[in-house]
């Protein structure tokens, strides 16, 4: 194998001379001189100096040329809404409320859902995931997220409309919205919905309540006609 694998390619290019014919003497001389000159040079690759070594080790420094406004402009509609909701919350709601929603939104939502269920006479042995607000597997959706904010007590120092604005902002945000589902569209396939329905008919409690097809919050789980344990199901 040649030290220079591209010899053939170079010579073919030279012989073709980019469309013009090269004299045979020139080709032979080029061949010989090139081989001679390249043979006289060291074969081992040179060692990188300190600067190149550090560059290879750490990579080229990356500079962000986008200013913050450009970054916001680059966000999608959902991202802008979520950002607007977060800003509105931070501006209007109390710091404690915001921190609570931001860090444990699912827990608040679950607590709200559990409270609603108790108010409307739902049985105590509802799905554990719903009744346990600290469970990490607690299901939540956009409605429960909005409900949690709506139920939060406004700070006395807040402006009169602050609470409403906060609820509105969260309602317009993507809080706990599934990424793949559109507004008002069912998140489960019909076959899955049927599976839930068959569970419901057989009296089996469903451990994973699907979101409501209409997008409404399912804070009021219907009681089962047979009196069996119920959970929010897809209709």
């Amino acid at each position, binding site marked *: 194998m040649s030290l220079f694998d*591209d010899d053939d*390619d*170079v010579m073919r*290019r*030279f012989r073709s*001379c*980019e469309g*013009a014919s090269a004299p045979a*003497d*020139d080709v032979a*001389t*080029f061949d*010989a*001189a*090139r081989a*001679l*000159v*390249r*043979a*006289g*040079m*060291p074969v081992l*690759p*040179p*060692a*990188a*100096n300190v*600067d*190149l070594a550090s*560059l290879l080790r750490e990579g*080229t420094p990356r500079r962000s040329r986008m200013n913050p406004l450009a970054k916001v402009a680059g966000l999608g509609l959902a991202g802008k809404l979520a950002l607007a909701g977060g800003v509105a919350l931070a501006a209007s709601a109390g710091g404690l409320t915001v921190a609570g929603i931001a860090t444990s939104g699912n827990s608040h939502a679950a607590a709200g859902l559990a409270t609603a269920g108790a108010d409307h006479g739902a049985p105590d042995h509802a799905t554990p995931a719903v009744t346990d607000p600290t469970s990490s597997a607690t299901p939540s959706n956009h409605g429960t997220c909005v409900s949690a904010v709506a139920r939060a007590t406004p700070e006395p120092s807040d402006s009169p409309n602050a609470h409403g604005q906060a609820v509105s902002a969260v309602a317009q945000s993507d809080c706990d919205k599934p990424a793949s589902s559109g507004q008002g569209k069912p998140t489960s396939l019909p076959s899955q919905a049927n599976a839930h329905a068959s569970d419901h008919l057989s009296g089996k409690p469903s451990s994973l309540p699907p979101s409501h097809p209409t997008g409404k919050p399912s804070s009021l789980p219907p009681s089962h006609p047979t009196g069996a344990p119920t959970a929010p199901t897809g209709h």
Partner: protein
Amino acid sequence: MAGYFLAHGADDAEDLTSEVFIGVFAKLRSFRGDEEDLRAFVFSVAHHRWVDELRRRSRRGRTDPYDEQADPRWVPSAEADALSSIDARRARELVEALPPDQREVMLLRFFGDLTLEQTASTVGKRVEAVKALQHRALARLRKILEQAVSL
């Protein structure tokens, strides 16, 4: 790349090669093209780096490179002597026989594998001028090689 600088007679070919690649990395984001274009781009950076080196030398004067054979502590190695000295010396003689502009064209063609168009673009000349330089260089090289063979 190091061979290109060594053939030019650079004292610190390794360092120059590193500097070329540092420059290439800095401009790599703006580079568009295929493998051949990248090769031409790299040797274009090398050519400009060499031109800078020549300017620097003219300002500060040339320093004599370390010659290990002139060092009294140097112990000659038969293998190294046999393998490198003859080829290197002949290659250096061949390259140094060419005027600077012809040498530049031929070294870019020899080491960079650049086409005539790429070479012309790199050295800032027209393709016809590069062809003429190459033709004259080859005529001179042919004469040297024929003399070497006859000896």
